[in-house]
């Protein structure tokens, strides 16, 4: 009688021990540290993880990719609740100010060794990740989005427009008004669409202005900033001339448009080139890259931050410093087209000499170096991304005919009041 419970206990004990052993072998006890990296989309880091793990055999990586909009929402939730964030998280420029306002939620990179690296990045890229008091730095820059204009050679040719990139650039070298005028002609002649979405064109114009949707005191100046009013009016003019293909970014229809050639031009920050290339493999050689009207401007680009809840700040920082160093940024650019934020590369022939076969051998190194060096930094406010999205929706309502431009504008302003 007494042997049975004993046996049962010993079986249970054996199971517990086995489970314990199994648990140990999966954890940190074997000396390996797994760093998680949270990104929106593929940043082209895959080969770099492997390279780093070879240099540091005790470090392993786990990449988590989510959708652009979800990524920042999730990150905010994880920061607020104190758990769930990855060791290293990507933050797009439209969201960075929201996080620099709360530097306590991140490891201060100035304490981890970044204080000696300031000169490595474009000055404005560095500034964007600094807290208001300048005491903490929450992230290191990856890429910047100096703007260019991608266009379809075949559609331009069919419309009787020049196809060589210098001549195309000259078409709208004067201003955005020229761009819209050429577009009006194109749409009238061919019945095709000039660009994919009005929100994108609007955003490009705003990014080029000295001041955007916020002033330096974080007040919304959408209503009072003349640059925004002018950009809105010109965009509305383009919509009314039926130049917009009315596509929403990142939707399957948008992706298909690149392949099918339903629109002739799209504003192209450096990171967009890799997106076009992967989503429209059949259109190789048909796309080319010219300069953007209205001068230089930055659209997009990211930082990598270390949430304070991460348990391996030293290891994560060491990797971050390595990953954002010029050598690695150059590798990312070669693989994906995301343009480096470290100016020392801008004189490196390895970068400036690069061209892309997909874009009819366009000298992307040269084009985007010129774009990036000419950028006059614009202050980005806390809810930059959301404000631009709200205005974009207003333009969307004009596009689908549900509102007049006046009503759309007043709804944008009333929507922004709740910000």
């Amino acid at each position, binding site marked *: 009688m007494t042997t049975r419970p004993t046996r049962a206990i010993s079986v249970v004990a054996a199971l517990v021990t086995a489970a314990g052993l199994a648990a140990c072998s999966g954890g940190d006890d074997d000396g390996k540290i797994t760093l998680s990296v949270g990104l929106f989309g593929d940043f082209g880091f895959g080969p770099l993880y492997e390279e780093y793990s070879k240099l540091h055999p005790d470090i392993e990586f786990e990449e988590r990719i989510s959708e652009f*909009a979800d990524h920042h929402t999730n990150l905010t939730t994880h920061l607020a609740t104190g758990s769930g964030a990855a060791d290293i998280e990507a933050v797009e420029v439209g969201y960075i100010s929201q996080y620099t306002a709360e530097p306590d939620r991140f490891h201060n990179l100035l304490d981890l060794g970044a204080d000696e690296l300031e000169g490595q990045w474009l000055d404005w890229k560095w500034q964007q990740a600094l807290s208001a008091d300048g005491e903490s730095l929450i992230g290191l820059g990856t890429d910047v989005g100096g703007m260019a204009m991608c266009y379809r050679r075949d559609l331009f040719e069919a419309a009787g427009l020049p196809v060589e990139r210098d001549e195309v650039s000259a078409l709208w070298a004067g201003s955005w008004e020229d761009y819209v005028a050429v577009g009006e002609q194109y749409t009238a002649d061919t019945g095709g669409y000039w660009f994919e979405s009005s929100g994108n064109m609007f955003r490009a114009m705003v990014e080029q202005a000295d001041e955007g949707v916020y002033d330096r005191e974080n007040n919304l100046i959408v209503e009072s900033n003349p640059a925004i009013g002018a950009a809105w009016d010109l965009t509305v003019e383009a919509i009314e001339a039926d130049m917009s293909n009315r596509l929403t970014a990142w939707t399957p229809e948008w992706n298909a*448009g690149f392949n099918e050639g339903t629109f002739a031009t799209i504003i192209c920050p450096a990171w967009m080139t890799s997106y076009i290339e992967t989503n429209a493999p059949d259109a190789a050689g048909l796309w080319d890259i010219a300069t953007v009207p209205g001068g230089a401007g930055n659209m997009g680009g990211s930082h990598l931050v270390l949430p304070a809840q991460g348990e391996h700040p030293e290891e994560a920082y060491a990797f971050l410093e390595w990953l954002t160093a010029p050598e690695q940024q150059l590798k990312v650019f070669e693989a994906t087209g995301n343009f480096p934020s470290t100016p020392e590369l801008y004189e490196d022939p390895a970068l400036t000499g690069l061209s892309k076969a997909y874009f009819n051998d366009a000298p992307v190194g040269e084009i985007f170096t010129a774009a990036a060096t000419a950028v006059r930094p614009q202050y980005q406010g806390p809810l930059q991304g959301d404000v631009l999205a709200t205005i974009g929706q207003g333009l969307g309502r004009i596009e689908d005919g*549900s509102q007049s431009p006046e009503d759309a504008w007043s709804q944008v302003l009333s929507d922004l009041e709740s910000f």
Partner: protein
Amino acid sequence: MTIAAKGSGASSGTKGLLRYRLDLKASPYLYIAPFFVLFAAFGLFPLAFTAWVSTHEWSLLSDEHVFVGFGNYEALLTDPYFWNALGNTLSILVLATVPQLLAALLLAHVLTLRLRAQTFWRMGMLLPNVASVVAVAVIFSQLFGRDFGLVNWVLEALGAGRIDWQAGTASSHVAIAVMVAWKWTGYNALIYLAAMQAVPREVYEAAHLDGASRMQQLFHVTVPMIRPTIVFTVIVSTIYGLQIFAEPQLFGGGGQNGVTGGASRQFQTLTLYLYEHGFNRGFEFGYASAVAWTMFAVIVLVALLNYLFIRRIRSAS
């Protein structure tokens, strides 16, 4: 010795009796306890806590929670976007539920007939229900695409024009209703089928002798006989329909349009409205909780109305 033994025996007897009665009284409660403990932790407590949060200005981003009484509810009831979302939700509910339940009834009726490979047809009914909501929403969003969607391709081939399904209010509601109906028609058909099989054969034989056609049998015999089941499906569909989230969210595509249900909020449902406030830029949990409780009230109200409506049909027939 004997007295002592007797005494201890008696005391152990009463102890045993006590234990037995305790066992008899307490055990059943103990057996059902796990459900109630879990329900209290994951059902009742969140419900009560949400009510508490809804009376505060409570943002996830700040540690200060200011009591505002019914302030959130007042703001909610004066927000035109809330009424817009309520209208959209009810419209989608009607578009999705009414045709769905009628179709389910007809399908169930067909399934009661003698068919070859009966099990195959019956299992097939359930297949759409097995697919995940997200997969269904993604696929249907592509089918309803403006430029390269299959639906528009067919419409164009038939000579009808293309429809920008996302842009219009009515068209977007129809598209979302189709997703819901596709997923749930078969499920409801199987529930009706089960109920129909419990209807005595003799009633049909009598109806047949009286000269009732198959259709007349369905509406004059079957429907009245399975009415409790119909009430059940109507209420369950109502509850589901009022909480639609994934379909409009994915239909809107990435970014802001997925949160507001299109640029004009033309298909923003109540849950999307809740999501917009609770899990978007402000993370206004207080306001979102007020939305949740208001939704609860709306669901109870609509379910009750539906119940009364179905009951009226019974008394009429």
